């Protein structure tokens, strides 16, 4: 399903949980970035991003394709290290610790900051082994793996659907179930943060809804940062929204991604302060 379809089908996006009290600035930041710049080789993909991500909040990153949302997201758990050309400069602090400091082990970082990808990517193993993989490779102390698998699947609201086929290959699940399995797999190690890169872009509306419900529940336990193309989704699930766009340098013509506006989701969708944000959320651009 495309964004266009979503946009056309539903009413204009409006924040669903206005009731939830979101402070003006995150009370307890999990991540703080200061003048974050990311290059791929000589290409300046993201320029000067400074923002804070709050604990136990859902932060949405929105913006047109190619504006660097995934790039910023991957930089928060050092997945960018896997791209040889990628170079990060500026500051990224995680609970005050410089994430790109010389002593930081990217593997330890990823154990605390899990990730869910755009396309569901379960391992070609059983459902059980998919969940148990993280605890096994990280050497987590587990008294009873069966219990852990059950608890995790329950937390991911998947238990009832898969409890009779734990030993079956995960590829037998539907697309939406596979993606929820990937979320379950990510939380099995009890991370601090879960990063999600367009987790619903390949799913139908019902599967999307289930994942959104799941995110709302998981917020109590984890900090969630989600990249989404779907503005209604951002409006529905997130507490805060950051709008990125592609900025064009007028003299050189170089394009680079950057943060335009970052605020409470209600503010962004009801009363954005930047023209570009307003243009994007009203569907006039992007």
């Amino acid at each position, binding site marked *: 399903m495309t964004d266009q379809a979503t946009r056309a089908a539903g009413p204009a996006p409006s924040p669903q949980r206005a009731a939830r009290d979101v402070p003006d600035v995150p009370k307890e930041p999990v991540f703080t970035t200061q003048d974050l710049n990311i290059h791929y080789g000589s290409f300046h993909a993201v320029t000067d991003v400074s923002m804070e991500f709050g604990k136990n909040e859902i932060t949405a990153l929105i913006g047109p394709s190619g504006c660097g949302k995934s790039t910023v997201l991957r930089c928060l*758990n050092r*997945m960018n290290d*896997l791209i*040889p050309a990628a170079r990060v400069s500026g500051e990224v602090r995680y609970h005050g610790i410089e994430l790109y400091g010389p002593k930081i082990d990217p*593997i*330890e970082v*990823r*154990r*605390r900051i*899990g*990730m869910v*990808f755009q*396309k569901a*990517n*379960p*391992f*070609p193993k059983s459902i059980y082994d998919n969940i148990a*993989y*993280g605890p096994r*490779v*990280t050497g987590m102390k587990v008294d009873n793996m069966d219990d852990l698998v059950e608890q995790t699947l329950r937390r991911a609201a998947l238990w009832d659907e898969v409890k009779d086929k734990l030993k079956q290959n995960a590829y037998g699940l539907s697309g939406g179930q596979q993606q929820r399995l*990937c979320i379950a*797999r*990510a939380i099995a*190690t009890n991370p601090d943060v879960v990063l999600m890169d367009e987790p619903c872009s390949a799913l139908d509306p019902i599967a999307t809804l289930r994942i959104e419900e799941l995110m709302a529940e998981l917020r109590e336990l984890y900090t969630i940062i989600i990249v989404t193309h779907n503005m209604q989704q951002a409006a529905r699930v997130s507490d805060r929204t950051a709008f990125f766009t592609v900025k064009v340098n007028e003299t050189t013509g170089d394009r680079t991604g950057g943060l335009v506006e970052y605020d409470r989701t209600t503010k962004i969708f009801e009363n954005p302060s930047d023209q570009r944000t307003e243009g994007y959320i009203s569907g006039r651009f992007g």
Partner: protein
Amino acid sequence: MRQSGRTRIAVDAARAGTESLERRGIDVKGELFRAVLLLCISIGIVMLATLLAYVIVAGWPRLDLSLFTEMPSTRDPNTSGFLPAIVGTLYVMIGVLVTTVPIGVSAAIYLEEYADSSKWYNRLIEVNIQNLAAVPSIVFGILGLAFIVRGPWGLGFVAFAGSLTLMMMVLPTVIIASREAIRGVPSTLRHASLGLGATRWQTVSRQVLPVSLPGILTGTILAMSRAIGETAPLLLVGATTFVRFLPEGLFDGAYSVITVQIFQWAMRPQEEFRTLAAAGSIVLVALLLLMNSVAIWLRNKYSRAY
């Protein structure tokens, strides 16, 4: 609306070109090309079939159990068999297997998962593996004679010297096939594993290798079947000896292999020995076909799209 008017004209023009749906005569060039291709394939198949038929007809009278159980004899071709050569081949192939697989797969893992291909030394390794695959087998025989049988290693004319010589020859095949298989593992799988905090080695050993195993196995079997049919390099590293006893081990005593034994029988003037050679060839060809079939079966069974 000017715009839509122009679009209409463009669409009409495009349609005009596809108006006729009927065939426009015979595509002579295409048909000719197809005929040539068919001819080429036929030549290959006919030659193979002729060869097989000839060998089977020639060797049929001696294709019995004594072939597998008897020692060779230069005096009595009718009770002469291939036993030491079969055992020798087995020894040599075990040696090839246990050396080629670990070295070849490790090299493939290094090149695919760890090597930074922008570094000159990694590119040098890659180019050299390609080159190695193109070296004539007799050259490996000379190398084996100079460095493994004599020279620094000085193993002597033993089965393991034959193994190492053949290993050098088939290593590029195994490396290239394994790299191919490892490269076929989707990167989403690696990212999933690394994203959970797995180390690179955990990712390789628990995700990448199991998925690429069928491809690696296929490459290995094909490499082994190439090694088993090889004669030239083995002639240089000791398999020439006419042995009437079983090899004592991988590292002791003279040995022979099936191909060399066939070669020796075929060189003799008497008709009976030629029959014996043909019978040995049947065994060898059957073995090769079996190995290749297993490889193809494996590939088909496990080839799936992610």
